[in-house]
């Protein structure tokens, strides 16, 4: 191999290799940076929603002072619910059940800081809640109570309260393991439950508990019979079906849209990352093309040596080994440099972002490493093909 390299290194141009390497490192670094930041930042905007499916709507009857004064008119009757469920575009209707007892919650944040507040609960049938069924349940007589909070609450805490009070910011994962002490008060009883946050939702501005708990608590602590539902959750099988929209309009129902601004932001982020990755790939592809050409010329220039080697009994693989090794070493070095550059760029970006968003995850690292490995493998395979195909054609 040493001999072969001594023989075949003539015409290898350091200038060409350096130029090509710089271009390729630049292209790869752009790709890696986009992949790693995309992976790190996207979860901020793309949190999993605790409500199942994407096509659902919350509908209610319009509230005005007259109707409120008359009372009763703004709830849904069973007939109305059946009519809604009969719509072909509707695959499921769930009622919101409100609590008829008092709820008082306390959260200890450490350092002697405690937050406590009066609250209320609502529930929807479990089928509408996309939380692990192991977590989303309440056993009668048990003390553990899972709840789903609006994601706004976490934002309110992180960006408002925590900043103002100098308290630590909470990620969703950390919030999930916090204990909330929940007192349920009614009919002269006061019992304490251990609440924990099972999920967050962008789409519902209410605090959800499992239906089983709601039924149990209303029967045990409820001070009034459960009222008819004033809101319904509707799962829409086919969002583009206009008949449903018409029906809702004719009935005079109001449809509450989920807050989807972070969804749009996530989409925008994906588009930008996609564009940047494309540009990086383009740079890398051009660099690859240039180097493939220069390798090809190198082989042409050393053609007679390669031919003589093969007449001596060298196989194309063995004769071309120095060039294969050269492309492999260059590929590994370039990918390594690109990863290092991307990590540096990532560190710089996260320094800017972390004051706003707290600690960001490491979730971009694995995709970046996989991308790096895949691109390296692709390049090495393509160089291998270019070199071997050329050398095989040289000798009989």
């Amino acid at each position, binding site marked *: 191999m040493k*001999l*072969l390299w*001594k*023989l075949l290194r*003539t015409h290898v141009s350091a200038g060409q290799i350096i130029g090509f390497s710089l271009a390729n490192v630049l292209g790869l670094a752009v790709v890696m940076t986009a992949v790693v930041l995309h992976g790190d930042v996207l979860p901020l905007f793309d949190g999993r929603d605790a409500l199942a499916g994407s096509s659902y709507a919350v509908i209610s009857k319009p509230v005005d002072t007259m109707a409120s004064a008359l009372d009763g008119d703004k709830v849904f009757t069973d007939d109305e619910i059946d009519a809604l469920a009969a719509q072909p575009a509707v695959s499921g209707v769930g009622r919101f059940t409100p609590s008829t007892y008092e709820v008082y919650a306390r959260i200890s944040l450490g350092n002697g800081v405690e937050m406590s507040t009066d609250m209320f609960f609502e529930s929807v049938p479990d089928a509408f809640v996309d939380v692990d069924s192991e977590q989303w349940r309440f056993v009668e007589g048990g003390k553990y109570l899972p709840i789903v909070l609006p994601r706004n609450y976490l934002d309110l805490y992180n960006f408002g309260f925590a900043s103002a009070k100098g308290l630590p910011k909470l990620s969703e994962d950390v919030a999930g393991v916090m204990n909330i002490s929940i007192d349920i008060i009614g009919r002269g009883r006061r019992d304490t439950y251990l609440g924990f946050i099972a999920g967050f939702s962008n789409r519902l501005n209410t605090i959800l508990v499992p239906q089983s708990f709601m039924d149990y608590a209303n029967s045990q602590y409820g001070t009034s019979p459960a009222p008819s539902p004033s809101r319904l959750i509707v799962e829409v099988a086919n969002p583009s079906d206009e008949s449903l929209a018409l029906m809702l309009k004719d009935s005079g129902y109001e449809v509450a849209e989920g807050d989807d601004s972070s969804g749009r932001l996530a989409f925008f982020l994906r588009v930008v990352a996609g564009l940047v990755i494309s540009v990086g790939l383009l740079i890398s592809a051009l660099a690859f093309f240039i180097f493939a050409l220069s390798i090809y010329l190198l082989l042409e220039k050393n053609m007679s*040596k390669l031919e*003589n*080697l*093969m*007449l*001596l*009994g*060298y*196989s194309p693989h*063995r004769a071309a080994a120095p060039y294969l090794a050269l492309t492999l070493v260059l590929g590994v070095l370039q990918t390594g440099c690109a990863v290092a550059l991307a990590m540096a760029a990532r560190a710089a970006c996260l320094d800017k972002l972390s004051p706003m968003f707290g600690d960001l995850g490491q979730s971009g690292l694995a995709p970046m490493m996989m991308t790096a490995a895949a691109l390296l493998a692709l390049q090495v395979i393509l160089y291998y093909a270019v070199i071997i195909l050329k050398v*095989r054609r040289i*000798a*009989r």
Partner: protein
Amino acid sequence: MHSKPVDQLTFDGVVPSALLGRTSASGLWGGRHTFERGRTYLVEAASGTGKSSLCAYAYGYRNDYSGRILFDGTDSAKLGKAAWRRLRLTSLSLMFQELRLFGSLTAMENVRLKNDLTHHKSDEDIDTLFDRLGIADKRDAPASLMSYGQQQRVAFIRALCQPFDFLFMDEPVSHLDECNASALADILAEELDARGACAVVTSVGRKMNFDFDENITL
């Protein structure tokens, strides 16, 4: 590495494209001639009558001829690249007329490039060959700076660094003095004896001091 030895190499109606229409008196071109393992052949001819072509056809890197070349009855036209490579490592060796040494490598490196592939000769054997051929002091000189006669001896050593049944030597002593030519002939005789191999040596004029079994005139 060792496969079944090739015992017969037959030229059957072979005519170089350049000589089409002419048949020589010897019957080699256009006729049927078999080179046999264990025998030695001197091929004499004026230049331009196809001595180098004979070597190139047998070694398989030119096919500008009509007719067939058979290795123990197997048509060489049916051999793929891998089969030719195997033959060149185990059964066929060729000392090119134009030598085909690598000028940027030293004499020793040129030999090693072949021996690394076959591991046929020990380092001591190679040193002894350099000694006996009088180029021990040129071992580490770049081949490009050596005289043609010196290069011929390096190419000869390289051709010996592999097992073979047939050794083709294309004008091996054209630039050697009497003394070195006979040293080369002695070594050749020993190597052929040891392997029971066949040698086909071409010459335009200068002849090796060697007792050939058969003389062929093209």
